[in-house]
């Protein structure tokens, strides 16, 4: 197992290298650039000072040299400073990451915690009215645009009923609340964003689980389990589910990078101070160090997510040896 992990981690290095080369290439080849935003439309900038600014940020060097410089700094875990506000990239990410982790973590947790049992339940009651009701709901989940639902829910729960805060992560008076009050404040602010961001994923995971379950319950070993006299719940939730989980584990691995990526749309709608906003602003401001920082962390998490999925897979399926 340990040997496998080390091998996988080593194998990930070339992939990581490839990802950084491609990302670096793409953002530097994008028309425009940091200095052109600052100066192209500004009549007061002389060509001379433009060149000086390029030089300051090493942007005058050939691309490969810029890349080598960037990598050599990265190896010292130096992500550089943001072009936009000169702050350390690592600090900028550090202050945004917790909010996104909290939101996407809870949302992914909800998706799997509710989606899987919902799918199993649906499969257990295959072709009955309960199954059809769930199927209808999941199709609604697929097809209703979540940003639209978000606005409707904000209107209903925040404006009309005034039960939940509309946006943000905490109240203005948050700092004056008791510890319990602070916690509750976070909870209230999380309810709408978590529900809305989990909505679509919940629909697909429950649908996917249902499909896998229906496939698995046709297998001979399920008939054996029933022939032993096991109760229906045990047959479905233990014997069938453990087999049906195998493909779902892959999806869990794929969900990990989303954990930090955050969603620009939802973070904007809910004024959530997360990574999605940060990445958006960085991309439009040609803030190369920040973009690359986010890309590297994202790539590392994606690779770790894949490894995690493989390990979970092996833990669940004895036929797979690591």
């Amino acid at each position: 197992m340990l040997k496998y992990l080390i091998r996988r981690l080593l194998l990930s290095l070339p992939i990581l290298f490839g990802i950084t080369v491609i990302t670096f290439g793409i953002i530097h080849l994008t028309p425009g650039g940091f200095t052109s935003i600052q100066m192209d439309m500004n009549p007061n900038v002389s060509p001379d000072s433009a060149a000086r600014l390029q030089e300051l940020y090493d942007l005058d060097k050939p691309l490969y040299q810029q890349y080598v410089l960037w990598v050599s700094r990265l190896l010292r875990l130096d992500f550089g400073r943001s072009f936009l506000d000169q702050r350390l990239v690592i600090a900028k990410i550090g202050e945004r990451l917790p909010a996104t982790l909290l939101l996407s973590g809870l949302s992914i947790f909800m998706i799997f915690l509710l989606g899987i049992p919902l799918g199993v339940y649906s499969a257990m009651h295959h072709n009955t009215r309960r199954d059809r009701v769930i199927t209808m709901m999941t199709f609604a989940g697929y097809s209703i645009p979540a940003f639209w639902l978000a606005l409707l829910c904000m209107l209903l729960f925040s404006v009309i009923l005034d039960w939940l805060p509309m946006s943000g992560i905490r109240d203005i008076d948050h700092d004056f609340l008791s510890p319990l009050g602070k916690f509750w404040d976070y909870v209230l602010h999380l309810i709408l964003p978590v529900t809305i961001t989990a909505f679509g994923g919940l629909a697909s995971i429950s649908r996917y689980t249902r499909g896998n379950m229906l496939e698995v319950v046709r297998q001979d070993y399920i008939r054996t389990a029933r022939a032993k006299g096991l109760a229906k719940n045990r047959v479905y939730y233990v014997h069938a589910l453990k087999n049906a989980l195998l493909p779902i584990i892959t999806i869990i691995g794929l969900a990990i990078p989303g954990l930090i990526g955050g969603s620009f749309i939802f973070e904007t709608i809910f004024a959530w101070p997360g990574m999605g906003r940060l990445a958006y602003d960085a991309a439009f401001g040609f803030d190369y160090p920040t973009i690359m920082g986010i890309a590297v962390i994202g790539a590392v998490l994606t690779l770790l997510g894949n490894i995690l999925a493989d390990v979970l897979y092996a833990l669940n399926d004895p036929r797979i040896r690591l």
Partner: protein
Amino acid sequence: MPWTHAYPGAIIVPDSSILSVKDLVVAFPGVSGEGVQVVRGCSFSIGRGKTLGIVGESGCGKSITALSILGLVPIPGIIQGSIKYQGQELVGLEEKECEKLRGAEISIVFQDPSTALNPVFNLEQQLVETILRHKNIGSREACDMAIESLKQVDIPDPQKRIKDYPHQLSGGMKQRVLIAMALLCDPSCLILDEPTTALDVTVQAQILDLIELIQRSKNMSIILISHDLGIISEISDEIAIMYAGRIVETTCPSEIINSHRHPYTKGLIESIPKIDSKKKKLKTISGFPPDPQEMPSGCPFHPRCTRRLEKCVKLMPPKTLVNDNMSYACWNPV
């Protein structure tokens, strides 16, 4: 006159039989119409401690008959008729009540051992849960019982083997484990659906010996399903020949070779290969068993029958009794 009503309960001797199946019909409703009947009025019974062998070609409904006894006919199959276990009617029994019987009173070993064990649980988990389901004992004790059961079916080194996952076992071992699993709670009735078809001949013989041994020590009734008449006549007390969802002849091993009556039985016997036979080519029954969706009129065997009369095409032959445990359904018996 439908054949199934000709002699209601003809071969059922109420007191000595532990399980009796009467006029069993299993149908799968299709997308359109009333669907297909794959078992069409099957009746048999089995005495305590006895072995009933059911023989028939592939697709004649043997497995479905076995599944209907346990109430495990795949959805959307519909069961009609009567299945009585120790006087209790099983057709239409509540699922919860069925669960109590399955594995405890009536056990089944399925046809294909390679897919019958859950690949993601080890043997211990799969054996112990059966015991815990039906017996009121601790899990330590249950584990000891499980090891004991593996020992009983001659699995070497059971303490170690019990931690194995199904993929680590050979086909013969899996079959043994499945037999052990079926026997865990000392059922009174064991259904073996082609227990040896997937195995090579030597292992086959071992498993059959093992089954006979266990049966004698526990006075268990066995329904042995096979398409191999040789195996059936070796260990059965009674033999039922099944064709197109019906029992067409009941007989016993001592009589089957010399005094069979149904032409289909004759065909089956003639198609058994013999080692010392000089003949190059085996006799076979010409044609194929009928598709359940397009059953021929009259006797379902008539298109393949060499003794066909005009009557056979139109009328279903009734069951004719020879004695208490011998009967046949044919207009022109051998």
